[in-house]
């Protein structure tokens, strides 16, 4: 579909929204534009951002993966359990790799099921969501582990770009943000400059055309789910690193922020659209909204309403921007998007 002409415009809209929100919040609270606050906003964006980029990769191929939070929890809790049982002194890199691998494995299961069962991906991943979560909580454990492996707590103390604030306090950028930004850069480059990345857009844009071009559609789709699982495993792992504890009942239930971020960033549920930059901006918008409601004097109970309205507006914006009137929908006959289907 008309990819290049559409999405810079949407990204600009989101960027303007982020800047406007920042200016409004900054005028209410002078502490907003300090290194401390900006670093902490970025730190808060890491987990939701990693989830959102994984979710976005599946959206690009025209699928919908709602099991990411469950995958993140299984990766995180499974890694901690394994490490404590067999190798408590495991180096950080190994722990990181194990969590990512567990995520990749579960993502592969998603990918195989979606491509083999030929059922809507939303329904398949709803199934795997409760399968993974139920498995973890019934067969692995329900207790919160407060003594995570030492490598994780040590890693959590690392800060880079340490600057001294006005009041003399040392503030630094958390190391997990660096990991996050590197992953954003990698996904950006892969999507933009590699055959693999272009194939993802091609499959999402028009699976039939992609197949005729010689793209192995099933393999590309499976890859997207696998990559999303890997990123979810990493996100879950970083959430445990930041909290210094492994709770198997976290993350699930917070999916909506992630979905809202990806949709805000311009990813279309029909596939083949959106960019990593857009998703990154969407994540910032959600995180700033969540963090600023209290600064703006809005009670915390309104948070869900704010996210819901933001989500509904975000879905509507591209529809308006594309000028998709009812007449054009009637002409193409494809206005109402079917569950988990791309345009075909």
């Amino acid at each position: 579909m008309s990819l290049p002409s559409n999405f810079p415009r949407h990204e600009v809209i989101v960027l303007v929204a982020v800047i406007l929100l920042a200016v409004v919040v900054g005028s209410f609270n002078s502490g907003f534009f300090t290194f401390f606050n900006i670093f902490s906003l970025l730190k808060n964006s890491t987990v939701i951002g990693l989830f959102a980029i994984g979710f976005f990769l599946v959206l690009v191929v025209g699928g919908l993966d709602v099991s990411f939070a469950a995958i993140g929890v299984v990766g995180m809790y499974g890694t901690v359990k394994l490490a404590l049982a067999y190798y408590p002194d495991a180096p950080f890199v190994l722990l990181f790799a194990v969590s990512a691998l567990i995520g990749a494995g579960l993502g592969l299961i998603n990918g195989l099921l979606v491509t083999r069962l030929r059922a809507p991906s939303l329904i398949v991943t709803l199934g795997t969501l409760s399968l993974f979560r139920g498995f973890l909580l019934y067969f692995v454990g329900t207790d919160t582990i407060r003594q995570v492996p030492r490598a994780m707590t040590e890693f959590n103390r690392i800060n880079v770009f340490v600057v001294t604030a006005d009041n003399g306090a040392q503030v630094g950028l958390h190391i997990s943000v660096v990991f996050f930004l590197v992953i954003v850069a990698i996904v950006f480059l892969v999507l933009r400059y590699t055959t693999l990345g272009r194939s993802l857009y091609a499959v999402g844009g028009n699976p039939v055309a992609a197949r005729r071009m010689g793209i192995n559609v099933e393999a590309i789709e499976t890859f997207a789910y696998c990559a999303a699982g890997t990123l979810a495993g990493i996100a879950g792992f970083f959430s445990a690193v930041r909290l210094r504890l492994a709770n198997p009942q976290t993350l699930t239930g917070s999916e909506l922020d992630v979905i809202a971020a990806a949709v805000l960033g311009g990813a279309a549920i029909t596939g083949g659209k959106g960019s990593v930059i857009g998703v990154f901006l969407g994540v910032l918008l959600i995180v700033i909204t969540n963090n600023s409601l209290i600064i703006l004097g809005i009670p915390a109970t309104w948070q869900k309403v704010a996210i819901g309205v933001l989500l509904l507006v975000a879905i509507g914006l591209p529809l308006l921007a594309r000028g998709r009137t009812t007449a054009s929908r009637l002409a193409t006959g494809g206005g109402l998007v079917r569950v988990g289907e791309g345009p075909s």
Partner: protein
Amino acid sequence: MRLLQSVDSRLATLLLAAALIAGTLGAMRPDTFLSPLNINSMLLQSSVIGLLSLAVAVTMLTGGIDLSINATANLTSIVVAIVLSSLVPAGGGNAAIAITFLALVIGLLVGLACGLFNGFLIAILGYSPILATLGTMTLFVGIGTVLTGGNTLFGISAFAAFGRGSVFDIPLPAIIFLLAALVLSLLLEARRFGFYLYLYGSNEAATRFSGINVRTLILSVYAVSGALSAVAGLINLGVTNSANVDFGASYVLLAILISVLGGISPSGGAGRMIGVVLAVLILQFLSTGLNLVFQSSGSNFLKEFAWGATLLVVLAVGGRRYPWLSRAASAHERTHAAKAGSAAQP
């Protein structure tokens, strides 16, 4: 006709499965499983999830989905609870019927409003059903949180008779669920609305081109879904005598699982409400059975695991049948659509 026959073979399978599971459990624990107490409690438990399943099934028939069912149900019970608790001091004991009636009207209005809002987003603005109802789900939960401040509302005793009442020893909620299923079945299988709906689910373009008012159709589908969710919320309020935003968070998944198990095709156009009713019974039997066999604290998580596995197995087994089924269905209905189209352009 061919469509009906092929779906009926699925109904026979479901009926057989329900009878087998009930028979096995009955033989294993005759004193507990077949006791009137247990049967009544199973009927009571399945009525809320049953109504939610009908709500999601009717949208799946159009190829859409309604993820906001549970949020709508909870919002309904919250609004009704707030209105009733502000009225109860004024109304005496003999005003119980009036209060119940008022609650029903308010509840249905809330549900219809939620459903029409979904329908507006989907049919008029062109939102995709998944994203629209995901957004409204958050919005409805948010409004519920604002109204309750995140707390649970208690003590709406004037309405308890509605949830705990029974007719001929059958719980009232179960009767309401079965009545709703019956009315919906008639609407879908004996009225023009149902014919258009199945047609839309199996061939959207043909429906548009045959001059059917698709907007009104989709609006009414989501309004029906909202109303059914509202009834589920009202029953829940009556049974538990409390209302909060977090109730039944896993019900959305369960309702989708029941619909798919009951033979509703996720891509639309095929499936019957009677299948959904049978699937509700099967899942309720299994749930009670798991509770009887595994009386440990973690059996909720085992259930979650089992539901996920069941959904995937049903998709895998049903997947072989669906392509053929939907081809047959769309071939069948395309001829009708062509007829309807030529009739519209004389």
